[in-house]
């Protein structure tokens, strides 16, 4: 029988932090302004890493991070963290447009690969991924110094991932901000007890999520809040490469997808800048401003 390597050796080998470079999704471009609703100057690269979860399970996480032209972590960190939770039966890869957008604006995105693509079956994967990134950031490898533990983070989720994001937000105070994308908190999730900020965005032609439930869920939020209804956006407009069944059960896109997404991102960018970066102008806009292409409720 081949001898097993000793445990210390295995530990040393396997405890290594993730190594770069990542695969580029977006080249860096200093001419991209990075205002709310626009991509930023950073490049965006992704890679996947594994961490331990719930004592013995393996959790795989896709990390999309601000990158230089070589796919290494960009200068300018530490970067605030956004945990992105996938919708039911939607692949993490299908949200790369969103992850790359956020990374280009200087956010590090953690997208756990939930078992069976059903986030609600393991509703602390975002927190576990954040803990892993806190450790990796303190080690060598591509994420050395990438984030600052203790700094406000956000958890956002699409559809079923949004309901799960609400669970994580209630559960873990490291998640200062909650983003609900075409989603609403489940009835069993006591969001009324949390005074932290939340943003709820939904498309006006979304036929998958019940707009009345989105509004009802929004009204349960107790902290600073904003509900935006994006004119012309549907449910599958939040992810790429929808399958026929995603399209059949949904309402139509009414407008250019890139433009509708930019409208949505105007609000999401402002929300993240306000609460994760402490940007005073973004905070004022979040509290009193208007956003192109959407109806607002506060």
């Amino acid at each position, binding site marked *: *029988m*081949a001898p*097993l*390597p000793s*445990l210390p050796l*295995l*530990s040393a*080998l*396997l*405890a290594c932090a993730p190594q770069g470079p990542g695969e580029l999704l977006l080249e860096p471009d200093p001419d991209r302004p990075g205002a709310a609703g626009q991509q930023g100057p950073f490049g965006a690269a992704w890679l996947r890493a*594994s*961490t*331990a*979860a*719930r*004592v*013995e*399970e*393996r959790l*795989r996480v896709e990390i999309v991070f601000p990158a230089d032209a070589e796919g290494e972590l960009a200068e300018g960190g530490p970067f605030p963290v956004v945990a992105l939770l996938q919708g039911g039966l939607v692949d993490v890869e299908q949200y790369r447009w969103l992850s790359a957008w956020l990374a280009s604006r200087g956010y590090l995105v953690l997208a756990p690969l939930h*078992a*069976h693509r059903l986030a609600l*079956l*393991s*509703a*602390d994967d975002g*927190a*576990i991924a*954040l*803990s*892993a990134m806190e*450790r990796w950031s303190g080690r060598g490898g591509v994420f050395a110094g990438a984030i600052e533990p203790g700094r406000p983070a956000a958890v956002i989720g699409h559809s079923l991932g949004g309901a799960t994001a609400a*669970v*994580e937000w209630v*559960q*873990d105070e*490291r998640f200062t901000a909650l983003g609900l994308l075409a989603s609403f908190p489940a009835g069993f999730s006591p969001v009324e007890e949390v005074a932290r900020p939340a943003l709820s965005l939904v498309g006006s032609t979304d036929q998958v999520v019940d707009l009345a439930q989105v509004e009802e869920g929004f009204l349960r939020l107790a902290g600073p809040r904003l509900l935006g209804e994006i004119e012309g956006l549907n449910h599958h407009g939040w992810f790429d490469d929808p399958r026929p069944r995603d399209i059949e059960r949904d309402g139509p896109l009414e407008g250019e997808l890139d433009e509708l997404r930019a409208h949505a991102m105007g609000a999401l960018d402002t929300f993240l800048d306000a609460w994760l970066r402490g940007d005073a102008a973004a905070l004022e806009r979040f509290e009193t401003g208007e956003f192109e292409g959407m109806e607002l409720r506060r």
Partner: protein
Amino acid sequence: MSLLLPLALAAAAFADPIALRQAGPEDGAALVLGAPLVGLGLWREDWGVSLATRDLATLSLEGARRFQRDAGRSELQLSAGLGALWLEPGLSGHLGLTALRRALGPRLGWTGSLSLPFSLRLAGRAAPGPVEARLPVLLGNQLQVRLGRLWLGPSLELGVAFSPGRPASMAGHLGLGLAVPTRRAVASVQAQAGGLAGQGLGDRAADQGGAEDRQVVVVEEQLLAAAAAP
């Protein structure tokens, strides 16, 4: 078995280390290949030992004592063990309680189980919070078909795992169980397992190991080698 190994190595997701409770009521070896569990269990009389890896990211060694009634149709298993955690280095402790009910005919069988395999991180730190523990409550079913001396069949466990201070998560295991209820196989596998189950059985293995037994050993070697790889 060589065809099953790649399936086991490709497995990923969620599960709980079990191998012993897949075994029949007699002494024997039980191999569990599935998603994401790969385990090998060995019984001699009412004592057993199992070696299991989940996601090829942990390796757990457990000892078990079983209490049988109704000629082996009802059974209670108590198990305890230690595990090596590799992704975030550490040690885990295990305590398990399983109740089983079997219906075995000459060719077909069924085993139902209710299991509570508690795990606790003893060293190292991974999850948010100071204590990381996991208590799944699992309902299991295994169908068994007898092919010669081999009992073989699909197994499915599903349940909910509880962790203190964290939301509940889904737990489960989908796999293929193989049990060889012969003393000869037990002796051979245990002898090759590097003294995991005691010295006395090794002597019997040296005398009785046959072709079938060696195949079980080869699978075990491959699993261990695979488990040692990152």
